[in-house]
């Protein structure tokens, strides 16, 4: 029983309950009391999660069944469902990302969310617990519970606070995700039943299943695919990505931040934890096909981004491209690629989250997302331009900023597996420069043609301080990624060593004569 992790996971839920009991009509003296309460809870959650990082013992992690901060209670006895949570080097960075981004996302919606504020805040906090739950769950039932739990607040966030086509986007998001999830549910049940047939014991516990399950190759592949579909939709992997631009475009700013920042990572995390963890043989068999899809996604997302006229859609497609790197890294099936993928998830969460916050800033001022409406903002909003520049550069993987480390590790990992992967994926890195700089150019450079652009205010203090933490992390992770890599690498190594036996740490150097 470890209280820290439990507290981190459920504190936002407590916050949501507290908000639920609060008066809908805030007092005249302190109109922002609801927002401050929600922010307080999320900040406190973040502070609580810091000890996780500081006291984390760099164990071998999930691969060896070595998890930290474990709580394991038998929950629903007849079916062997445990309340089993814990973290390892793969989930810890993502947990920190979640607790880090949620307060910032709340800040980004500080004034832009005007209607139904209380419900909004409650949903955001519920979403945080849901996401944290996915990352900490070590029981398939619990995992599925949290997995679906993240879906509902997100749909409502899009469907209630979104822009014009919000209902279409929300339903599309829901249907896509639900289709994947249901297949995963079937696969989970199949796993449990197969395990029960083999051992006579019902259990949903991930570690027990992992240790005790013997699957024949065909079953592995089918189950792998059922899990994979759910995760691939979430990531999203080409060609399952079309919900993303719609959802991102229609979602309110905080929703987009969380969606891009954390929700997409649930997919990548799921692939690592479940696809690689439970079905190593199938992962090995299918890795080339998946890697090719990932590479198509990388290039395709970048090309399509370039042709977008809507700022949010552009960033959304850039996510398709960047998350393609994550999938490629995972299915390079070596420690380099996997570590890079985890780091890239964190980096993408930071940079794309910040990008959406920045887009939200001008949307709030100009009520348009069309690139053609902007131009010359560099004159009227210098601070904004500077922050946007840093985030854009982080997103296009300039070394010294965070984006580079993850992408390079992924590319290097992919190169070690098959150099052709890396060659094509690197094209994505070039294209990132094309579309991101093009975007930057459209917004900030040139003369101010539209008088509305001359009148926009630069960032206010709240907006600056909601972005500064991310900018700091962009630099910290760019120059000292060991902060996370020291945690990630052992877990990645043990995971990779299971997938590829006896090739864990020594990669072949194929060219050496």
């Amino acid at each position, binding site marked *: 029983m470890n209280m820290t992790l439990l507290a981190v996971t459920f504190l936002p839920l407590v916050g949501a309950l507290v908000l639920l009991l609060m008066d809908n009509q805030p007092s005249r003296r302190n109109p922002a009391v609801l927002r401050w309460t929600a922010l307080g809870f999320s900040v406190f959650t973040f502070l609580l999660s810091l000890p996780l990082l500081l006291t984390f013992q760099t164990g071998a992690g999930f691969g060896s069944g070595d998890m930290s901060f474990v709580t394991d209670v038998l929950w629903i006895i007849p079916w062997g469902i445990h309340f089993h949570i814990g973290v390892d080097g793969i989930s810890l960075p993502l947990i920190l990302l979640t607790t880090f981004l949620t307060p910032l996302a709340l800040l980004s919606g500080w004034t832009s969310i005007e209607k139904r504020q209380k419900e909004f805040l409650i949903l955001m906090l519920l979403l945080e617990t849901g996401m944290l739950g996915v990352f900490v769950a070590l029981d398939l039932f619990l995992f599925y519970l949290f997995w679906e739990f993240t879906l509902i607040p997100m749909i409502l966030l899009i469907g209630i606070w979104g822009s014009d086509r919000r209902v279409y986007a929300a339903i*599309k998001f829901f249907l*896509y995700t639900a289709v994947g999830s249901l297949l995963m549910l079937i696969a989970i049940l199949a796993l449990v039943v197969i395990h029960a047939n083999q051992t006579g014991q019902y259990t949903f516990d991930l570690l027990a299943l992992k240790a005790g399950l013997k699957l024949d190759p065909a079953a592995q592949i089918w189950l792998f695919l059922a899990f994979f579909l759910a995760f691939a939709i979430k990531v999203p992997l080409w*060609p399952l*990505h*079309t919900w993303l631009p719609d959802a991102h475009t229609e979602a309110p700013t905080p929703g987009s931040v969380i969606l891009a920042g954390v929700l997409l990572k649930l997919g990548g995390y799921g692939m690592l934890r479940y696809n690689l963890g439970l079905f190593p043989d199938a992962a090995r068999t299918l890795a080339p096909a998946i890697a090719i899809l990932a590479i198509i996604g990388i290039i*395709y997302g970048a*090309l*399509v981004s*370039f*042709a*977008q006229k809507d700022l949010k859609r552009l960033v959304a*497609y850039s996510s398709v491209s960047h998350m393609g790197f994550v999938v490629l890294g995972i299915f390079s099936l070596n*420690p*380099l690629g996997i*570590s*890079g993928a985890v780091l890239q998830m964190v980096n993408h969460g930071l940079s794309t989250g910040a990008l959406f916050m920045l887009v939200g800033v001008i949307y709030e001022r100009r009520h348009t997302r069309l690139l053609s409406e902007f131009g*010359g903002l*560099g004159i009227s909003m210098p601070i904004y331009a500077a922050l946007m520049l840093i985030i854009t*550069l982080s997103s296009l993987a*300039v*070394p*010294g900023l965070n984006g*580079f*480390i993850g992408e*390079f*590790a992924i*590319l*290097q990992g992919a*190169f*070690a597996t098959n*150099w052709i992967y*890396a*060659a094509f994926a*690197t094209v994505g*890195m*070039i294209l990132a*420069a*094309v579309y991101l*700089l*093009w975007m930057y*150019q459209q917004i*900030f*450079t*040139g003369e101010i043609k539209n008088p509305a652009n001359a009148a926009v205010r630069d960032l206010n203090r709240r907006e600056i301080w909601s972005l500064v933490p991310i900018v700091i992390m962009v630099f910290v992770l760019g*120059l*000292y*990624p*060991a902060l996370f*890599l*020291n945690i990630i*690498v052992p877990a*990645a*190594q043990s995971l990779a060593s299971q997938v590829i036996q006896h090739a864990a*740490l*020594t*990669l072949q*150097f194929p*060219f*050496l*004569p």
Partner: protein
Amino acid sequence: MFDLVVLVILLPLLGVIVNAFFGRRLGERWVSYIGPGAVGLSFLVALILVLSLAGLPVDQRHHETILWTWIPIGNFQVDLGFLLDPLSAVMILIITGVGFLIHIYSVGYMHGDPRFARYFTYLNLFVASMLTLVLGNNFLVLFMGWELVGLCSYLLIGFWFERVSASDAAVKAFVVNRIGDFGFILGVMLIWTTFGTLHFTEVFEAAEKSLQSGAPVAIAITLLLLIGATGKSAQIPLYVWLPDAMAGPTPVSALIHAATMVTAGVYMMARSHVLFELAPFTGQVVAWIGAATALLAASIGVAQYDIKKVLAYSTVSQLGFMVAAAGMGAFGAAMFHLTTHAFFKGLLFLGAGSVIHGVHDEQDMRKMGGLRSSMPTTFWTFVVAALALAGIPPLSGFFSKDEILATASSQNIGIYLLLTIAAFLTAFYIGRQVLMVFFGQARSDVHAHESPRVMTIPLIVLAVFAAIAGFFNLPGVGSFSGWLGEQAGELNLAVAAISTLLALAGLGLAWLLYGRSPVQQDQRDPLAVRLGPVFTLLERKWYVDEIVDLTIARPFKALCSFLAGEMDLGIVDGFVNGVAWLVSLFSRWLRTIQTGFVRSYALAMLLGAVLLIVYVATR
């Protein structure tokens, strides 16, 4: 003691931080102390370090400083570390020295610009990045600097971002450089996959030990690195960004696009010369690319009117000389030419900047003329640099260029011919420029004035170096080559005589066309009259930009909008929406079953009951 090398980078970085956060509040006066001051201090530190390095025995001139492990992933370990050895010593002296002068010059040039502080932020950042590039002790730190200088170049080209042409040029520069980086980064990955390390010394040791000359992997690595070099050092086919980059402030062109950043490719090849020496095939490719670029760019330079465009193509051309030298294995000669070029081309750009400043932001040489008398300092320093570029002895350019030509004459006569023609054209176009700008009558009614002293003093200092730098590496003595551990070039009298004569001929031809009877206002260029369509072809830069636009840019845009429109919305999303549409079609049909007549529902129930009983009874 040598750990102080960190300070060399840290000082400009400190300038960046101070200027970025407090620049606006400090005001122009303080910024103009902090910006150049940081680089000046950095230069002093660098000078002390290099002098003490020179005091060591030859085999100990190698010092590494490691800050921390940058990327630790299992056996992939990359340090954030710096290497001070003779090669990087030369580079840091050029960067901080020339950089310092250009910073001072900028104080005058950028005077009164509303974004004065931001300019120095970027410029300091550039110096820090360039130092990171040359000081990195492994390929990845080099790559970090490599990308960061590209970034600074982007920021500075697009410094006046209100101008669409400037921001276009900035994006073009960054993107074209990224295309080069594609090769470079793949090369880096191949290096690690091959040798298991990215650390320079370890890689080169392993390569020398395990690879034979001409090993395929060596060729692959070097070709990939070459792609990177063609991007950064503006070689065929990736040179197209450099002429456009002139949209930035002129001191930037001097520092980044003449003296330092564009030479990064040459530096990188010199740094990894061990690998290049193992791949003679790549050497051939490099040499031919360099020579072809030298000639092509020189030919375009002949027909330009923009004072900076001439210099830009000249830079491309001179970089071609360096790259050709590197390709032929004469890394010492390449580095030497790099050094002298930093002086005289930096000076040329600064002179051009002074001219532009003097004639109130006019860049068209057809509207200049006769500036000799109104801008004497600028004129004399410009002439020194021009003669150095043309290769007139005993100015610096003569020695460095001659060393390259001598190598070429002994190794590859084809390359020698290309380079010699390029040298002739160089003399011609720089003569044409000097004559058009400084001689004859003023061709517009702008009242030209000499630049302030803060700008002319750097010109004078650079002029001195442009004049005497050749003596650092006299043929047969070769103190510079010796410092780099290379053999001194030999004096090939025939080659020297031919090139000197050709240079004089080029200058003479320029005088015949432009000096004897100076071009009048609204008069057609005499060369254009004589060459006709060929001149137009050269003036339009062989239509390369148009060809690129037609064959790459447009199809690319079309592909993108096809993918975004027909493909993504049409097919991929269309498939999804199609499935949804099918479901709703089925549902609409299914809906008609709900007639609303209770009795038909009852009938359905009865049917169900009948069937259920059949099922139960027959089971």
